[in-house]
């Protein structure tokens, strides 16, 4: 019989039903007999990804990050996409799929976090390596499905200065004394911003936090996708309630408008 190999999940079947679990263990812990009673959601989340229970500092850091990322607000492209689903009465899953697809990108999305986490792995807390790396323009790889990032990962391509929410998040998360990246980022933010001529963005703080928590770039990318879904969900539902007449449609300026087609006009006159 073919098998599904897993190091995460172990089940024991009910004696009379091979398709129902009597017990479920996650990385060795009894999920419904132990974790449900004794662990928090954020601890369980950490356990799922890392395979070990978090320290108190790690649990607090992941919880802080989850809070900071939960709702980027309606101006964020991923939330905007989810609202486009909600406003037209699209299915709930499609609203979240829209948020995932857009929030996956290298501009403000999970791919940006992935790239920034790779930078943390390569550069650590070496300021010179960061400054040299940030000065290099991202290269387009024509063989990659991901379009070339337009700016260094973790920084705001249109920002003027580091925004208050980003600074507040960085200050709060770096105070949790978990890993070295956040504290180093707090100390070295200004020279990094000088090197890129761009302010630090929330994605940059998220990447440092995820790196401090010991996640791989691929795990960080997944968590960033996941943790931003609550905001997408509620804004989609809210716009569904408001209805499309209260949602912007915007204007278009067509650069190559051929104008009304002659044959269609002639037909319209015939009909008239």
């Amino acid at each position, binding site marked *: *019989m*073919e*098998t*599904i*190999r*897993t*190091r*995460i*999940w*172990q*089940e*024991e*079947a009910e004696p009379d039903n*091979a*398709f*129902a*679990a009597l017990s479920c*263990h996650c*990385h*060795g*812990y*009894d999920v419904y007999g*132990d*974790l449900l009673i*004794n*662990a928090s959601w954020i601890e369980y989340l950490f356990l799922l990804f890392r*395979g070990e*229970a978090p320290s*108190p*500092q790690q*649990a*607090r850091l992941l919880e802080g990050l989850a809070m900071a990322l939960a709702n980027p607000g309606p101006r964020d492209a991923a939330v905007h996409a989810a609202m486009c689903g909600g406003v037209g009465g699209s*299915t709930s*899953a*499609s609203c979240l*799929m829209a948020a995932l*697809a857009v929030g996956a990108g290298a501009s403000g999305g999970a791919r940006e976090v992935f790239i920034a986490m790779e930078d943390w792995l390569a550069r650590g807390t070496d300021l010179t390596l960061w400054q040299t790396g940030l000065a290099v323009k991202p290269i387009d790889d*024509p*063989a990659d*499905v991901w379009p070339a990032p337009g700016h260094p990962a973790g920084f705001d391509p*249109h*920002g*003027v200065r580091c925004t208050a929410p980003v600074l507040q998040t960085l200050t709060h998360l770096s105070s*949790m*004394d978990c890993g070295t990246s956040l504290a180093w980022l707090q100390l070295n933010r200004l020279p990094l911003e000088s090197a890129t001529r761009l302010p630090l963005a929330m994605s940059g703080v998220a990447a440092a936090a995820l790196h401090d928590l010991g996640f791989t770039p691929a795990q960080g990318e997944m968590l960033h996708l996941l943790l931003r879904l609550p905001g997408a969900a509620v804004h989609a539902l809210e716009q569904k309630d408001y209805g499309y007449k209260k949602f*912007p449609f*915007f*204007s*278009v*300026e*067509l*650069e*190559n*408008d*051929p104008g*009304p*087609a*002659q*044959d*269609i006009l002639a037909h319209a006159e015939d009909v008239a």
Partner: protein
Amino acid sequence: MKGPELLEQHVGRLVTSAGAFFPGERAVFRGHDLHASLKDLDWLELYLFGITGRRYTLQQMKVLHALWTYTSYPDARLWNNRVAALAGTARSTGNLGIAAALAVSEAQIYGWGAALRASEFLTRARIRVDAGEDLKELVRAELESERGIAGYGRPIVSADERIAPMMALVREQGLDGGEHLKLAFEVEKILLAGRWRLHMNYAALAAALAADFGMSPREYYFFGIPAFLAGMPPCYLDAAEKSEGLLFPLPCRIMLYEGVSSRRWKPLEKSDLADG
């Protein structure tokens, strides 16, 4: 101009040459009236015009249509199709299942990740060979740096049943003389003669034909997005028409657990959480 000033310029307005619709009046598609000058295009022709802005000959269109016909497999075991079928068995909507299955088709070992790499390799190799470089050396270097060549070899099986019928059609349409196509077969010859023993797969053939028809790797990538689409609805419908949950039901014993042994959770003290 940059920063917020640049963003201000774009608030609430879309400046575009892609197209627009004028409610109750008309629709413009890449500078043409959709219901007048483009009204006779078949769907794939319009789709390609949207991507490339170019038109293709009747013979090329026949081959481009067949490229997707010949790879539309309604087999729910295939990973992307299985997503559509699982949506059916779980009683989700057809649109959600198929949209997710299409998204999954952008994979690295098959689908659009592999196809884009195949197209990029053949396009780059052709330019280099034209500039006098040795193809054998290019193939060797690519194998060394990428640990494989996209478009050659195949997960699960080595032979590709789509190549013979596609080549028959390509010859019938008189389109078998393209430079990328020739190069794709030359690469296969090199790979079969060496210790690698890798056959060309459909990704390389499709990429070569598209490149011979003037598509860039990126244009080819977009052309390919609906490639597996036709095989997906049958998978969804077949699962949806059967009783719920009958598609690949998994008993507990299917899991081969390779993780740590059973252990007890040590709850954090409330003071741990408060003090950090």
